């Protein structure tokens, strides 16, 4: 096993003053792997994602993407390498149509964003690609509607389409099924699994819903009070007494 990890985190930490939100986190993710970061509320999951994805720099530690150091690089320099993320609260372009939502990342992907005077409608190839991406996530029927009009679950799929348009190698999903009904949740789980299987995309998600985590992830990291408490297969995590202690005060994990 001498594969370069797609994501490698070394001693990552972030502090506000003397308060360490996350501290000394080290982990590696292999390409194609489906892994999840879990932990109780306030464990630091979102902060972890923010420093890894370049929303703000960490106060200590290093981040490598496919062997390249990206510590503290802003998002617009990390994204072109192939690392994309979604947000806990749906983050789309509400007034744009669903198709335009996907055209935006496609324009950036093909370096057409600063094309000033050629008509957008002349970019036939990008329109075709946009429709392909929408079909991929199953919202092709809504292509011409403003994104704000869509149902909540469909808006999350729009965000997924936005992310996929850049042909990512690694996708960080911050609670991809938050606020979804059971049917929408199942659809999202199947989509993530299908994308991983068909395109070899690596997904790394945080999730509250343990059902989702155990349905998707083959490797699980447990974050507790800002530090990595455990890492392992779903089986190992389920039987880890420290995890049970942290999570449910000694009870059992759901599922």
């Amino acid at each position, binding site marked *: 096993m001498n594969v370069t990890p797609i994501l490698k985190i070394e001693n990552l930490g972030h502090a506000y003053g003397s308060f360490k939100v996350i501290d000394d986190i080290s982990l590696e993710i292999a390409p194609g792997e489906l892994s999840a970061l879990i932990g109780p509320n306030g464990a630091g999951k979102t902060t972890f994602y923010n420093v890894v*994805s370049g929303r703000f720099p960490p106060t200590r530690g290093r981040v490598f993407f496919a062997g390249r150091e990206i510590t503290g690089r*802003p*998002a*617009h320099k990390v*994204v*072109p390498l192939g690392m*994309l*993320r979604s*947000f806990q609260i749906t*983050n*789309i*372009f*509400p*007034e*744009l149509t669903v198709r*335009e939502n996907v*055209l*935006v*990342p496609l*324009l*950036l*992907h093909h370096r*057409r*964003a*600063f*094309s*000033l*005077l*050629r*008509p*957008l*409608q002349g*970019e036939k190839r990008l329109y075709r690609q946009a429709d392909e991406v929408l079909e991929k996530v199953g919202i092709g029927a809504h292509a011409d509607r403003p994104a704000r009009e869509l149902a909540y679950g469909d808006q999350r799929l729009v*965000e997924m389409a*936005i*992310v996929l*348009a*850049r042909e990512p190698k690694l996708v960080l999903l911050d609670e991809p099924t938050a606020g979804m009904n059971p049917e929408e949740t199942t659809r999202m789980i199947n989509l993530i699994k299908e994308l991983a299987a068909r395109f070899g995309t690596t997904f790394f998600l945080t999730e509250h819903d343990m059902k989702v985590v155990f349905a998707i992830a083959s490797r699980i990291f447990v974050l507790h009070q800002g530090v990595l408490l455990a890492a392992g297969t779903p089986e190992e995590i389920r039987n880890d007494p420290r995890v049970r202690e942290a999570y449910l005060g000694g009870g059992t994990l759901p599922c």
Partner: protein
Amino acid sequence: MKSKLPLSLLPLLFLIAAPFCLPTYWTFILSEILIMALFAMSFNLLFGYSGLLSFGQAGFFGVGAYSAALLLRHGGDSLWLLLPAGIASAALAAVVIGFLCVRRDEIYFAMITLGFGMMLFSIAHNWTELTGGSDGLPLAAIPPLRLPGLELSLFDPRNMYFFILAVVALGIFFLWRLVRSPFGLILTAVRENKERLAFVGADVRLVRLAAFTIAGGLAGLAGTLFCLFNSMATPDFMHWSYSAKPVLMTVLGGAGNFFGPAFGAAVFFLLEQLITSVTDNWMIFLGAILIPVVIFFPRGILGTLAGYYRERREKKQP
């Protein structure tokens, strides 16, 4: 889209016919409306499309005006020099100032642009040796419009009017192409969600800076025209109250509509003409009109009309 074309040609036909049908006085009014329409539309590239409320656009308008006045004073006497120079000098000022503004949004962006606008005003007002101070720089002569085999004096109001109409139409055509380009979509994405845009790989500051520079350059073009039209450049062009004009016009006409700011400029001037002929308290009436527009028609007059028209057409179709 195609069926709309003849309808949108009507205003253009009116603008071409107007100087032959209306008294000369109205030729002046229409000239000024056209210049302000270009100014307001360039502002709306920032406000309506990119979601940035700039309160300092008069600064760039003034840079364009002074560049024309100074060039004329120092021997540059071709319009083919003055117009590009007006655009370039204002765009240059915008790229420098924009670099310091685009890091912030919303009220902070508005305040920083207001601050820089006031600084430009102070320079124009106080650097007397260069700018003539509060008296401004009068133009000794306006260069004629030299076309192959043709030389038109712009002292003739009708010639001046058509010159302005042609330049403004070109500026608007440029904006029209711009908002329909890939860059135009990226601009609206900045307005809609700058965070999502950054996280699909856009350098949001660079996009904003590009928009700010283009808007500044076009404001400079409008300022150059205004300087030629008025035969002078004065610090008043750069005063913050002048920066408020495109804001008011855009709100009146509708920021979400491409021609909204131009429509707003026309409404603004026509009301001003009408009301100042009766009373000096034009601002009281402007306020009294603006407030209900903002409260009841947040999409502006033209924006509301266009929305109403679209809804009716959609109801008919299915």
